């Protein structure tokens, strides 16, 4: 059962590490982006930090966790569809689909490496911020932080499977990625608190899972909130997951059936 996901992980690790310079540059790029936000955070004076009070008042800590956790949204939304597209263009998808391994296993296993890499990135982000740039993570509640992370992955992965369903049938362009990818960065509170938005937009942000994921992540890492204190945010993430998981499975099953009927399973 575990052999198949491990085989994907091994394949992706070997492939990624064979491009050593790219791997190194990714790490350097990550550090540069952290430093950029670190210096931007110096522009904020005390009065502008009012909206950040509940997260500890420090903009850099706020945005660092925002960027780190938004990585899950990005990888969740894109890894399934881009994984499928990559296998189609490599010509390896047909060879995989001819095996007795279920397509759902193939699809989920394909994205493990991306999620693992994002988790490592998140850890490195937090570690770099804490060690070199003074981010205080000493209050972290590990239990609620890990639960937040797990629910975030499940929620965003379901969106990603919906996105892959569109790609499977339409090949290019999917509304899920466009809606959740584009709107989440603006309304989800990645770079600035939702309180800075006009009321209507702030209300719209409550429809996005990233809003609850980021709030729970920040409060558990920076303020040490436990599961009980985050029950609303975590409950919302569970609610989103309960809707998204079956919906994504239904959509994906329909997309596969459609692609088999069209004969377009291997087209890209």
């Amino acid at each position, binding site marked *: 059962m575990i*052999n*198949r996901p*491990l*085989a*994907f992980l*091994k*394949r992706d690790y*070997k*492939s990624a590490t*064979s*491009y050593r310079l790219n791997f190194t540059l990714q790490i350097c790029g990550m550090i540069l982006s952290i430093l950029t936000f670190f210096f931007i955070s110096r522009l904020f004076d005390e009065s502008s930090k009012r909206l950040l009070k509940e997260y500890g008042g420090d903009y850099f800590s706020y945005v660092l966790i925002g960027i780190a956790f938004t990585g899950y949204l990005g990888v969740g939304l894109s890894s399934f569809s881009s994984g499928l597209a990559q296998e189609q263009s*490599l*010509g*390896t998808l*047909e*060879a*995989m*689909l*001819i*095996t*007795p*391994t*279920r397509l759902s296993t*193939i699809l989920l296993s394909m994205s493990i490496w991306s999620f693992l890499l994002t988790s490592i990135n998140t850890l490195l982000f937090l570690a770099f911020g804490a060690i070199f740039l003074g981010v205080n993570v000493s209050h972290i509640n590990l239990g609620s932080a890990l639960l937040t992370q797990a629910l975030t992955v499940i929620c965003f992965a379901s969106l990603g499977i919906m996105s892959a369903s569109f790609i499977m*049938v*339409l*090949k*290019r*362009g999917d509304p899920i990625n466009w809606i959740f990818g584009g709107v989440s960065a603006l309304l989800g509170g990645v770079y600035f608190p939702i309180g800075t938005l006009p009321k209507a937009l702030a209300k719209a942000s409550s429809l996005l899972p990233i809003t609850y994921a980021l709030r729970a992540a920040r409060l558990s890492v920076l303020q040490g909130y436990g599961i009980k204190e985050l029950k609303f945010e975590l409950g919302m993430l569970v609610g989103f997951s309960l809707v998204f998981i079956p919906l994504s499975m239904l959509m994906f099953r329909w997309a596969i*059936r459609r692609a*088999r*009927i*069209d*004969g*377009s*399973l*291997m*087209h890209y």
Partner: protein
Amino acid sequence: MNNLSSTDYAIYVDQLTKRFCPPKGLLKLFSHSNLKQPVNAVSGVDLKIDKSELFGLLGPNGAGKTTLIKMLCTLIAPTSGTAFINGYDVVQQEHLVRQSIGLVGSEERSFYWRLSARDNLEFFATLYGLSGRKMSKRISEVIDLVGLGDHADRMFQTYSTGMKQKMCVARGLLTDPAVLFLDEPTRSVDPLTAEHIRMFIKETLVRDHGRTVVLTTHRLEEAEQVCDRIAIMDNGRILACGSMDELRTILRTPCEYELITGKVDGKLSEQLKKLPHADNMQIHVDASGCNISFVSHKGGSALASVIRLLTESGINIHHCRSEEASLERLFAGIVKKGIDGTND
């Protein structure tokens, strides 16, 4: 439990049809499909392929061979009809079908170029459900079988075209499947390697291991050389199916005969030209003797008449040669007949 007739065969196909239709509704607005009219890629195909049979599938481009193979491999859903592989329904039991088949495609790119051949095979073997020592042993076996033993740990991207094709064959053999679909396995390899692969298919896979092989090829002489039976496909239909002899009989293609004899005089020449079933009689007389050639749809009986007349007239026969219609001629004839039939 499937019906008996389907389990008696390695492949049992009954009225299998694939009709591609243009998208409807919202899909019509956003779909990538350029289809304006429904297209019948495969129409009412019937096939019964025995266990341990080497079956050839021939046809011009766009004949429907690939669609047929992909339906049998569960990659495309049939519109109607049924198909069983190793007794399993390709629609209802696709998981079991995939455990019974191997597909050797002609797509030599279908590997991970930054990984070694062994790593690639390990990855696909895991997807086939192999693991541990059994997997390592099987990988070593198939690598040796296709002659890549010395290069197994080289990155795939450093392989030549022929070596990549061999890797396709190696992957198809990983699970030692009951039914193996080979889609032009010798397309990009040199003649020596092609011969090696052909012999490997015929002798090792089919004769020694009793595997059923469906070979799609454009090389007519290849099908003629190795296949037990051949189906010729065009416009989504099987136009003819049988052994080479059966195909010749179906088409009643003429056999060409050539005899080198002693001198034949004018009177005998006239008698020869009047013989029934010996058409297009050509008689060339020179100083050393005579060259007689003719064609016949009646095979041996026309030749017997010619020989009898010559011997009764006291003419020595120095040499006699017959040439049966090649698969290339049969193929052209069957496709032409199919087109004419369609037009009718």
